[in-house]
């Protein structure tokens, strides 16, 4: 237990942990000391000087080391000659702080006046107006007038572009350096900095593309003025017009808590539209941060390419149909297929959607399969991270092992939290086949060759090296495993081996221990919890099926062999947002609602169940997946299926063993979180950090060694023969999926790229930007070459979700295509 310190602030006794600064200590008793540069998630710098307070300390007798007493028996307190910064001064025993005396209030007013003299005071046209700490603290502590001459105000050209995502208004900047410090300390990506000095100090970037950092949006949240704004929100709305709608980000398995800020808009015919996405505080998940993918991807929901009504294939053509018609048609087909029906669902769907699909299949005797090229979730339900664990609480003595995953690209917030844990002194072991941005924080590193995953894992658990000991003998051990360079068969086998290792070393079923899968999708783990699993022989299974019912997946777009298999299956029903390659081949297409148009719940990689609500009205004539499936269930079986997601969830908690003992209501519970960053807090003002919607609940583990599933064999490593190359799939944050490429992130998405080491490119005499064709027995496809000196030699890295059919390690032939030099894409060279 940390030491407690007792002091008084404005005459009130305060009791806080040693190391707390005075600003935070004051907060615990409801006293507000204004701050600008200070931010509780950053190291104090004490540079804005607005938090100056009068601090007295007990006078200590040098000889005895005890406090000197006054004549009346009280402790003698000595005040310093100058006011001190409350943000950077830690509390000490017996300290006496005065934060509202005339001296202090005057100093505060003077500092604020200084800040305002160089500020444009353009609140009426400023995006921050209404939620601006500078505005609020000026109203509270500032002076109504300034004595300086307007013409002498410091001026700067406005609307300076830091990049295509973040804009800077240099005049509004108060040089608090929060953004610069965030990028340096939190994001470890110092791509913005100060330029010049003195009054000419300004924020600048020299990165390409501008302000190129996957966490860049957070700087606009913590900027205490309107200097940094996001490209989507700029001039988009006034903060007070917005409604704050809580939700969960669905872009990766972390499950960041977010808020959609929405308002009704005339130009959208009075419809409620999303104006921006902001993080919502959940200290055990994303603290108060989100990545740019989570912040900027939402615009796909407004795309005109969205499917807006059901379609039925008539005379070989997909034609519009009514819901009634389409449902009847589909249900007839389903009934006819009976147990030969296959349902293919993905981790994009919510628990309710998946449960509905499972229920439908149960009624016909068909099979529900998870569409995923990563596996192993069945192990995670047994040895996943134990409930109550918190990455932020891992301390020295604990170990985190990251295996086959580039967390920075695959689950940015986990990267951030793992990095912070490493900075706090835990042992970080990183084992990958290529360099990642986590390497520099690693205590130990084990680099293996693609294909040697099993060997590497054995070395870690059985090797006897320092690295090995730091894993097997750790007080607590958390393992992240991903699918870098691997497919379903490999990852499934790997998860089994990890589970075995964790069991053997007693690192499971205990607080802060267990396995965390880095899934490609938000609810993959949820599917496993419902016992929906991927199929290693999907092509065969699908070819044999009489009908396939596909939701949230595009097998035909991803892989030609699946496309063929699907065409061999009797008929196809598809539920999607867009007319995907799969939907184009379907017999029935149901248009679905986007996550922000409906309710549901998701299970994160840490097995935290979190709910999300509808934040905008549904797009045209669309329905939620669970509703569509629900109606089909009723049509096929004649039995009722709830139409309300909360009811479905409660059904899940009755029927599904892991979900037992908790109701939908429990998902909405919250407790006080530290630091206090709600809407009324002076650090932030308007930012939508409030979390009264729920912190989520972690699923219990299925305990007992007997409960462990059967282990699968690691497939033989692919060893290309002579002229062939090994191609492996890797995940990029800004992949070329439909959703990302419809957003502001478009400029940053990795197109159909294949990356190779410069030496390999030289051997092949291929230039960066050239188009090549890749071929194996099953397929042939094109890719554009990107040369990357940071990757291993002798292997081609293929970006997932960018339309290239590489979902597992493959041996391929490579041939350069006739290049059209003008056709090289921007940003590749």
């Amino acid at each position, binding site marked *: 237990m940390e030491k407690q310190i007792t002091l008084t602030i404005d005459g009130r006794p305060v009791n806080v942990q040693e190391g707390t600064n005075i600003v935070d200590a004051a907060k615990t008793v409801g006293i507000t000391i204004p701050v600008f540069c200070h931010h509780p998630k950053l190291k104090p710098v004490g540079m804005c*000087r607005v938090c100056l307070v009068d601090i007295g300390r007990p006078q200590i007798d040098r000889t005895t080391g005890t406090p000197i007493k006054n004549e009346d028996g009280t402790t003698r307190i000595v005040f310093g000659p*100058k006011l001190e910064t409350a943000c950077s001064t830690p509390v000490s025993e017996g300290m006496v702080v005065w934060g509202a005396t005339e001296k202090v209030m005057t100093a505060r007013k*003077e500092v604020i006046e200084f800040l305002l003299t160089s500020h444009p005071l353009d609140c009426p046209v400023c995006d921050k107006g209404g939620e601006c700490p500078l505005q609020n603290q000026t109203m509270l502590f500032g002076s109504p007038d300034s004595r*300086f001459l307007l013409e002498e105000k410091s001026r700067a050209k406005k609307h300076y572009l830091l990049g295509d995502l973040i804009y800077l208004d240099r005049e509004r900047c108060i*040089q608090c*350096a929060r953004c610069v410090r965030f990028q340096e300390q939190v994001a470890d990506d110092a791509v913005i900095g*100060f330029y010049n000095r003195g*009054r000419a100090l300004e924020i600048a970037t020299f990165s390409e593309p501008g302000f190129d950092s996957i966490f860049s949006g957070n700087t606009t949240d913590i900027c205490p003025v309107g200097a940094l704004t996001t490209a989507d929100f700029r001039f988009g709305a006034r903060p007070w017009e917005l409604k704050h709608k809580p939700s969960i980000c669905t872009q990766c398995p972390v499950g960041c808590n977010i808020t959609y800020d929405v308002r009704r808009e005339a130009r959208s015919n009075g419809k409620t539209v999303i104006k921006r996405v902001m993080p919502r505080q959940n200290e055990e998940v994303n603290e108060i941060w989100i990545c740019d993918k989570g912040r900027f991807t939402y615009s796909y929901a407004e795309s005109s390419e969205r499917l807006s009504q059901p379609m039925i294939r008539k005379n070989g053509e997909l034609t519009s149909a009514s819901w009634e018609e389409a449902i009847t048609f589909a249900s007839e087909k389903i009934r006819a297929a009976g147990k030969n029906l296959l349902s293919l669902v993905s981790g994009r769907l919510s628990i309710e959607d998946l449960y509905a699909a499972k229920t439908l299949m149960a009624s016909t005797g068909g099979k529900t399969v998870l569409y995923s090229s990563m596996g192993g979730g069945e192990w995670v339900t047994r040895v996943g991270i134990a409930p109550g664990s918190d990455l932020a609480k891992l301390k020295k003595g604990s170990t985190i092992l990251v295996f086959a995953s580039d967390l920075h690209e695959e689950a940015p917030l986990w990267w951030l939290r793992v990095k912070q844990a490493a900075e706090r002194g835990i042992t970080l072991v990183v084992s990958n086949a290529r360099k990642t941005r986590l390497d520099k924080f690693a205590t130990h590193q084990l680099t293996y060759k693609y294909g040697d995953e099993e060997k590497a894992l054995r070395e870690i658990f059985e090797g006897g090296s320092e690295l090995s000991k730091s894993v097997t003998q750790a007080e607590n051990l958390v393992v992240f495993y991903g699918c870098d360079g691997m497919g379903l068969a490999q990852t499934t086998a790997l998860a089994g081996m990890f589970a075995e290792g964790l069991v053997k070393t007693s690192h499971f079923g205990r607080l802060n221990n267990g396995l965390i899968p880095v899934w490609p999708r938000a609810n993959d783990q949820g599917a496993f919890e419902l016992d929906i699993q991927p199929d290693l022989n999907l092509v065969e299974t699908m070819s044999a099926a009489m009908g396939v019912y596909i939701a949230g997946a595009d097998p035909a777009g991803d892989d030609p062999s699946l496309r063929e298999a699907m065409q061999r299956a009797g008929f196809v029903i598809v539920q999607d947002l867009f007319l995907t390659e799969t939907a184009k081949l379907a017999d029935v297409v149901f248009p679905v609602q986007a996550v922000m148009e409906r309710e549901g719940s998701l299970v994160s990689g840490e097995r935290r169940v979190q709910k999300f609500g509808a934040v905008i009205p549904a797009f045209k004539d669309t329905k939620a997946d669970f509703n569509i499936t629900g109606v089909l269930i009723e049509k096929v079986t004649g039995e009722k299926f709830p139409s309300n997601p909360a009811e479905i969830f409660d059904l899940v908690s009755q029927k599904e063993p892991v979900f037992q003992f908790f109701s939908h209501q429990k998902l909405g519970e919250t407790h006080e979180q530290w630091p206090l960053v709600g809407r009324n807090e002076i650090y932030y003002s308007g930012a939508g950090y409030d979390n009264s919607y729920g912190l989520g609940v972690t699923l219990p583990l299925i305990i007992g060694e007997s409960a462990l599933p059967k282990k699968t064999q690691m497939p033989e490593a692919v060893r290309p023969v002579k002229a062939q190359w090994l191609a492996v799939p890797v995940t990029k944050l800004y992949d070329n999926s439909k959703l990302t490429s419809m957003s502001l992130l478009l400029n940053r998405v990795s197109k159909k790229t294949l990356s190779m080491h410069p030496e390999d490119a030289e051997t092949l005499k291929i230039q960066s930007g050239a188009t090549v064709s890749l071929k194996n027995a099953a397929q042939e496809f094109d890719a554009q070459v990107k040369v990357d000196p940071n990757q291993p030699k002798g292997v081609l890295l293929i970006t997932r979700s960018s339309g290239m059919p590489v979902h597992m390690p493959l041996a391929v032939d490579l041939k350069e295509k006739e290049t059209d030099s003008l056709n090289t894409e921007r940003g590749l060279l």
Partner: protein
Amino acid sequence: MSEFVLLRHREIPGLNQLKTYVANGGFSMWKKVVTSNKPEDLVREVKASGLRGRGGAGFPTGVKWSFLPNDIWPHYVVANADESEPGTFKDRELLEFNPYQFLEGLMLASFAVQANDAYIYFRGEFSQIAKKIDERIAELTTKGYLGDGLYATSYSLRVHTHVGAGAYICGEETALLESIEGKLGQPRLRPPFPALSGLFNKPTVINNVETLANLPYIIEKGSDAFRRHGTDKSPGTKIFSLSGRVNKPGNYELPLGTTFRELIYKHGEGIINGATIKAIMPAGASSTLIPATETALDTPMDYEATSALGSPLGSASVIILDETVNISRLVNSTVHFFKHESCGKCTPCREGTYWMSHITSRIESGKAKKEDIDLLKVVASQMQNKCLCALGEFSIMAVMSGLQHFRADFDARLES
């Protein structure tokens, strides 16, 4: 002065040759110090000498050294050769003409705190001097004064130079450390103090060039010899950089406690054209303007007595103002200096120097009203005691004292 401690090159031609320096007693103690391996003896002797830092703050050097913890390693010593205070030009003379004495001092200080790497931070304008010093370091290394395992002991010492690039604030010790680390020269928050967490977050001693140049003398001749000069609380000699309206500006090494009068009239040979002296700035642009009364002129220049007059002695860069100088113009210059040099990190200094510079310019241009003078005072007092480092506090010294003592000079510039 008959016996120079620091400006010995004025008596000994060619002292900036190692041969000459050694022939005149240079490095006589170095080998003994290293082989006897008693760093604590050095600390004790320097403490006893009462040597106070010559870089400005006047903090006792030996005491500063003793703050370094013995359980955090490595330790570093940094020589502050940033010399940028307007009116200061003493370190430059030492670096050019008596460099070995400074280097020897730096080496002794390094040994005293058991640092194996020492850095010399030069202001960017001293790049030619730095080049020469680099050559001298190489020479000392070749000759075995510096390097690994000195004199068959386990002690190693390497000395490195680091050249700044035009920023007065880098004379402030924590900004200087940032600058060596390759960052903007912005001061750090204190605590932690450099003695605990300095260069590369390790315990660090930072001393001025002149401070270090005193050390060979103290170690060789003993603290008592050193204390024969100067006063009890300000022992030793000091180089006074005399500039401004005197006939003979220049560096003068005099015992601390010498009067202003002696410096200005005896050594500086009085005021140009025999004009009347008006004010003294004892610590360069950072000092308070002291009206040159008879009492002031008779005040001994030591840390205590000068402070009592209203200005710290600082680095003893004495700028003399005579009756021909309009104080409003002078204040305009000092304010512009600080505005130019403000690092921009803290609000009061960044904004305050900016606004003061606008107001003093306006006054200088003859377009100001009386309110502007009041405003100037308001801005200055608004900055007072609020800045993160001393630069901001320095910037208001001439303003406040100028307005207090020479208000008429400002009034004379007002728009009629």
